[in-house]
């Protein structure tokens, strides 16, 4: 809330060996952030899924085929964040206090340049007007404003929950939020405990320690955007997904 606040670098650690691809995180995310169900015409290239679990395999045929599930959300890039400096009208910014990359749908003009800039395809465009089945709009979360057609949106670590935590702290006369009060919906929902969330700047947190593990990696690290989502796996072929694509033997994702 104020300048004397400790500066946080919120990040996430994801244990791919634990993720069973159930999709609870995607559902919790959609519920929390008022993301409407897709219209009939939508497909996996036109949907809105702030966190999307990819089904990744080792490119081998049965019975050598092995599958892993990789949740991909906004990687909250920490160094010259690709989407921030391309936006023509300051609809994207990085909060210096939390390190969270924010997207302002009300400022967005829908040019989609940021989506071109994002190497992780973690940004989504509203191709349709938001539509909920009659009555279902009663279940919308008051802490997140529904977006309109024609704008870009993406994961912001459930910022509504950060606001709520702030509010709670303020009620108690504090400026610092209690770490337990701020956990994104996907992390809270993950039944296998594959997702962890916390302040990377504080070395005592679980995520900071996870990030330091030898089997930990980040996607497309060489691009140099310093993402704050740290993946890890004990399987060698899984760790290879971090690097650039290898076209040979590549078949489309199952669907």
């Amino acid at each position, binding site marked *: 809330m104020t300048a004397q606040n400790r500066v946080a670098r919120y990040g996430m650690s994801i244990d791919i060996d634990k993720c069973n691809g159930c999709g609870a995180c995607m559902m919790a995310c959609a519920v929390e952030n008022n993301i409407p169900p897709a219209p009939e015409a939508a497909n996996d290239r036109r949907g809105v899924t702030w966190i999307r679990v990819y089904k990744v395999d080792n490119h081998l045929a049965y019975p050598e085929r092995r599958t892993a599930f990789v949740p991909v959300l906004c990687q909250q890039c920490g160094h010259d964040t690709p989407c921030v400096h391309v936006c023509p009208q300051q609809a994207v910014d990085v909060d210096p206090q939390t390190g969270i990359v924010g997207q302002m749908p009300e400022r967005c003009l829908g040019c989609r340049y940021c989506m071109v800039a994002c190497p992780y395809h973690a940004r989504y465009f509203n191709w349709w007007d938001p539509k909920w089945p009659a009555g279902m709009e*009663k279940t919308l979360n008051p802490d997140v404003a529904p977006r309109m057609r024609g704008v870009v949106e993406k994961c912001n670590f459930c910022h509504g929950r950060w606001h709520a935590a702030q509010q709670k702290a303020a009620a108690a006369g504090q400026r610092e939020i209690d770490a337990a009060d701020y956990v994104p919906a996907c992390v809270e929902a993950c039944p296998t405990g594959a997702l962890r969330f916390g302040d990377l700047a504080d070395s005592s947190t679980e995520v900071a320690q996870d990030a330091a593990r030898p089997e930990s990696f980040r996607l497309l690290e060489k691009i140099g955007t310093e993402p704050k989502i740290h993946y890890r796996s004990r399987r060698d072929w899984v760790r290879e997904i971090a690097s650039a694509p290898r076209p040979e033997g590549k078949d489309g994702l199952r669907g």
Partner: protein
Amino acid sequence: MSLPQMTTTRRNLLKFAGGGAAGALLTPAPWRLITDTALWSENWPGIPRPARGEIRARFTHCTLCPAGCAVRARCVNGQPVSLAGVKPHPISHGALCPWGIAGHHLPYHPARVRQGPVKEALAAVSRAISQRGAGERIAVLDLRPGRTVSWTYRRAMAAIDDGIYLAPRQPAYSIDLTEAQTVVSFGAPLSDGWGTPGNVFAARANFRLVQIEPVETRTAALADVWLPIRPGTETAMAAALAGETTIAEAARVTGVKEEAIGAVKEAIASGPAVVLAEDPASPLMNWNARLHALGRTVVARREAPIPEAWKKAAPVNEMAAAPDRAIRLLLIDESLPGGYVPWQDIQPKLAADAVVVVFSSSSEGYARHAQYVLPAPVYPEAAEDIGPAIDTVAAVFRIAAPLIAAVVPVVNPGGLVARIAGLPQTDPLRERADAIHKTGRGMLLSYADGKSTPMKEVTADDFWKTLNQGGCWMDSTGKKAAPHGLGRSVTSPTPHDDLPLMVVAAEVRRGGLESPLMSKLERESNLRMTANRVVISPADARSNGIESGGRCVLETACGRLSVVATVDAGVPAGVVEVAGGPRMADLCGASQRARVVRA
């Protein structure tokens, strides 16, 4: 008139307009209007405004599957806006599955059954009862046995002569995963819907999981060992692991490398192990006796106590037990999705002029076959309880307290059946709660404060109050008993030469409504299979001239279904992967064989 004059007047008009334009720019009007149109785009028609108000947490239990996970609902002015697990819960450990997380959307599902011919149905029912001929039976098919309302049905069927209570076979045992060091699972979807998710994942760290199944399901992907066997060769593998046949023999039949089988065999020998099967009644379960798992890992299933008066109840029968062409009136409670009994198992049991009434919220399941579909309440509208899950050892009693009033006019199946049978109109849940309280056994856990108190210190009313406001009764795990029956021999499906492919359900799919948001997992991503998709191997695709993403038809002995095929080298030849569900169950029936041809 002459040209110059005309032009001057026209020119003056232009000048006037020019002056107007110039002047307008010097007023706030144009700028404000430009701003307003931009602001209008923030809330133009169709963008809903979430209701504001007091935010409170309320507790209940999820009834979407027998796990009955504890749920904390975040409510705005009482209306649930999001669901989460209850962390301190000893069984569900704060976990929810994707279906459970969006359960509060179900009442508003556009495909929900919104009204039904209640009067006509009741008339038809009483007619059927009064005019039924000799030997004709009145039956209730309960897809979710073990609930309190199941007892109501059994009592009702006992009260009516010729009443018969039918249910899909329930395992007579439960599994204590904490006791096992090695779990050998023949296709049991341990990490995708088997038992209570939270409970399985909590125990997962402490046992080796050996997954034995033809395709790499979510469970196989996370198993310590996955033995990809040829479909239908489970028994051969089991025999080898049990030492009845040679490993070489098993390797030949199942197509799995000898050393892999050997390693698993050693693992089983090295410590306490348990065998699980996809079908809880599979004969493979009997092997547990030789693994000394009975009474340790595989224990007798325990249910919460019931009032004495309820003991006079009809026995639990499987569909097969019902006499053929005898059921005159069949009442199907499909309000909670459970084990689906394929229609072709039911049909032969119906009398010529049978009346079939189904209580359901979805038109997908038996609604496709019944004469009368009566709208049933959905989670979280109904006051229900949930029977013990397969992985809960101690008896438990938990109530799914309604979070909202039914949004459509619904009929309460239990109440209706009780009325038909002339049972006293009471609240069975309360009666059972009191019966449990009378025993004084076990503990009461309240979710709001996470405290658990011995039943002796709780009054009957407080007990009832806590159960409804978020609480759970857990019996003390007394001495574990060995279960009575495990598996029973099943007739192996007759092979069809014209149906070369083995149907394997890669997804766990219960019937009933799903949140519209499931589109995130099915259409907006490729995470889960939709019901109209099949996956086949490149070899089978080539031989049938099918390319990935192409329309084709899934043909079985019982029918055809138009589907979209995905070709994936991760699928073995001779297998067609499908998403489960009632439609698929009706389509495949007992013989799991099919053929995929171009549309």
